[in-house]
């Protein structure tokens, strides 16, 4: 399968240490800008499968045991930004996408 990089926004549209929402081919995604992390920008689904609403981009970033996670603003479950895994519920996972920062622009790979 080929990966296709899609331009999401300018780097300056991101909010340091927090998330914003973007639309990727009709799907809502959450983009987190974490300057301290190696990867700097993460993309995961905006859908909170437990709270059942598109809100993950509005959660607080938490660095737990060296892992970058976001805490859902609704019921506070943590999702790993790298893998999408929910830390509190084993069977729950959200989709993640590869991201790259290039010349001040943010691209997300769409499969």
């Amino acid at each position, binding site marked *: 399968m080929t990966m296709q990089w899609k331009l999401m926004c300018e780097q300056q549209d991101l909010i340091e240490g927090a998330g914003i929402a973007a639309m990727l081919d009709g799907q809502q995604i959450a983009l987190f800008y974490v300057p301290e992390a190696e990867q700097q920008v993460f993309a995961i689904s905006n859908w909170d499968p437990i709270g059942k609403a598109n809100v993950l981009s509005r959660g607080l*970033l938490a660095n737990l045991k060296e892992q970058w996670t976001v805490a859902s603003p609704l019921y506070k479950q943590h999702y790993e930004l790298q893998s999408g895994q929910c830390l509190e519920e084993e069977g729950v996972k959200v989709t993640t996408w590869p991201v790259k920062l290039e010349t001040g622009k943010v691209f997300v790979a769409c499969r």
Partner: protein
Amino acid sequence: MTINTLTADKPRLVVVGNGMVGHHFIEQLIEQGAQHQFAINVFGEEPHLAYDRVHLSEYFTGKAAADLAMTDGRLYDENGVRYFTKSQVVAIERDAKSLQLASGERLSYDILVLATGSYPFVPPMPGHDRDNTFVYRTLEDLDAIRDCAKQVTRGTVVGGGLLGLEAANALKNLGLETSVIEFAPRLMPVQLDETGGQVLKEMIEGLEVKVNTATATQNIVDGEQAFHRMNFADGSYLETDLILFSAGIRPQDALARQSGLEIGERGGICVNNDCVTSDDSIYAIGECALWNGRIFGLVAPGYSMAKAAVAHIMGDSDKRFMGADMSTKLKLLGCDVGSIGDAHAQTQGCKVFVYQDELTQSYRKMVVSEDGKKLLGAVLVGDNSYYDTLLQYYLNAIDLPDNAQSLILPSMDGAPAALGVDALPATASICSCHNVSKQDISDAVCAGALSVGDVKGVTKAATGCGGCAALLKKVVDNELLALGVEVSTDICEHFAYTRQDLYNLIKIEGIKSFAELLQKHGKGHGCEICKPAVGSILASVWNDYVLKKEHIGLQDTNDRFLANMQKDGSYSIVPRIPGGEITPEKLIVLGQVAKDYGLYTKITGGQRIDLFGATLPQLPEIWEKLVAAGFETGQAYGKSLRTVKSCVGSTWCRYGVNDSMGMAIHLENRYKGLRSPHKIKFAVSGCTRECAEAQSKDIGVIATEGGWNLYVCGNGGMKPRHADLFATDLDDETLVKYIDRVLMFYTQTADRLQRTSVWMESLEGGLDYLKEVVIDDKLGLCDELESRMQHVVDTFQCEWKTTLQDEQALKNFRQFVNYEGDDTNVVFVEERNQIRPATEEEKQQLIAKAG
């Protein structure tokens, strides 16, 4: 009343008297499951079910009868206990095992328990039964005293004992010129020695209460300047309008006398260690019972008797009544008084240490055994902080340290040399009201009660008179430590500090951002626990705009978008409506905005209006309109001041005694914007009818004839707590000053997400300590607390107003960074003419229809 239908198959257990001890007896019965074995019936002569007589005086300082009630009857109803108030039992026929009520009705018993308490002794001097003479024992007595005090100016208490002085304090609080007449040569002759009594007398006279000791009243006649004239044995006299007799109590043993039970020479129903009287089927407990020739005029021994009687009835002969300690500590007219054991040094060969400081008016005495090893007794006047330690040495017969006198000497840093709780034996009694030993606490902790609150719940310790609260906390902490339970107070894995530590670091080192704090004192990158906590502290200390670039990542969703997120990701909007007062024009604006945006509207539980269903991009648009119409953010999203609930007060209400509306608005405007460990709610009522429910708020204010009564640390919500009366009859300025200090002290010292109620429960020293900090400035902090609050007040900004002017911040409110549409998962349907979020099912149906 249907007493004659009391027939039941079960044996009948009848309790006469529903005072504190009678009630405790029932509680204990129920705890043992006795209601399944017996048909239990209770008769009380008073119109109320049992109430807290120990705190009776608080009926004059803001507590209502319902606050003092020990039960509202539910416990009885739920357990099939039948109770009858206003029902005096007038006779016992022991042969027939039956009782007679004042109403003439009769009923039989199998087991009878007398808990008839005692009655105030009124010296039979001529004139003792004139009008405007009272005793001090029941709620009705206090009602009558209050009514009389309204008409007159001078009041006199006959009796300078413990209760007499408490009554004198009450008269003084009712605004009367107050005198105390004591027959003995000193005050509190039972508990204090001569010097102690003298020091107390001087202290009390300093409070403008006249004290006459060694004074015998001969008769009471009509006065010339006042209602009464009291003529004394030495020929002098005193004119006064109101006389309150508090010359001791006598056991209420009338039924026992009438029915021929054995009674003591000077009254009291004789009982053995099981609290059984001379008749096997009759028990006597509480102040009416005479054990080993002694009457116990305190509640804790009564509770122990109740437990012993219940145990005996239930066939458990282990818990017998073995006497009780009569040591007491109290605050009388604001003066600390304590008395332990052999206060009068009557033990053969005992030795005495005395410390007296005439400048600060303190007096302390220790009575020790001949060999100097054991403490036998003590007297404290002026400072009770020495009491707990001394009491433990006494009760547990612990060997005194080498320099025993240091126990009553002021130490250099002001705190007395405390006894480590380690040194206490397992049998040490920590709470005498509920008979809880150190071992009981240790057991509770082992069984999983890992906080003072939990231990209180399990053991009931510190839920009686409350005198043992500080000691209880020490024991619990010590037990946790011993268990190796690590009571980690670290806020999270990123900061090895408590919230209070972080607050101090930020304040003292002038730290202005999370990054700076993390770099200096933390590790890692922060999480959803420490970030909002630090965000809140930064805001309390510096009051910066919360959406500044360096702060935005710290804010919980609601703070970040200055609105409350709902279940579907939409938001609600709550503009501030100070005190709940709103003009028609503003109401119209709210209605218009709601109409334009199709928002759901509701009046909140906090007297304001909530608009629901706004999307992220609509928030700034809507606030633009609201700010233009003069609204400010209501901070319904923040851990900050929510609402100040009000009543209309004296402006409109026929009962109002002060402008509660004006005060509510003033307070809401003053404290809006203060970020605190948790949300804070206020209320102001215009009179004691309390329509604003101030006693359930963090800060409650109730108008009085003399100004305002201030209540603190109440809570509704999950675990309701009545607020504590903090100060009375304050003027406007003092009221605000005290609130400034209480709130800032809370903001500085509470844990994260700790409401004031829980904070108060966790404060060592509790309400008294808070009073010392806020009223007496014990920590020398008051100026700083006030100036910090003033800083917050002076730097207030409406966060929405600021946001609307900040292009960068506004970007935050885009739904998508690269797309103009809405979140299609936010779907509303109509109900009762307004929108509401569609259910999952409705969403599926709508999608099916559209597709």
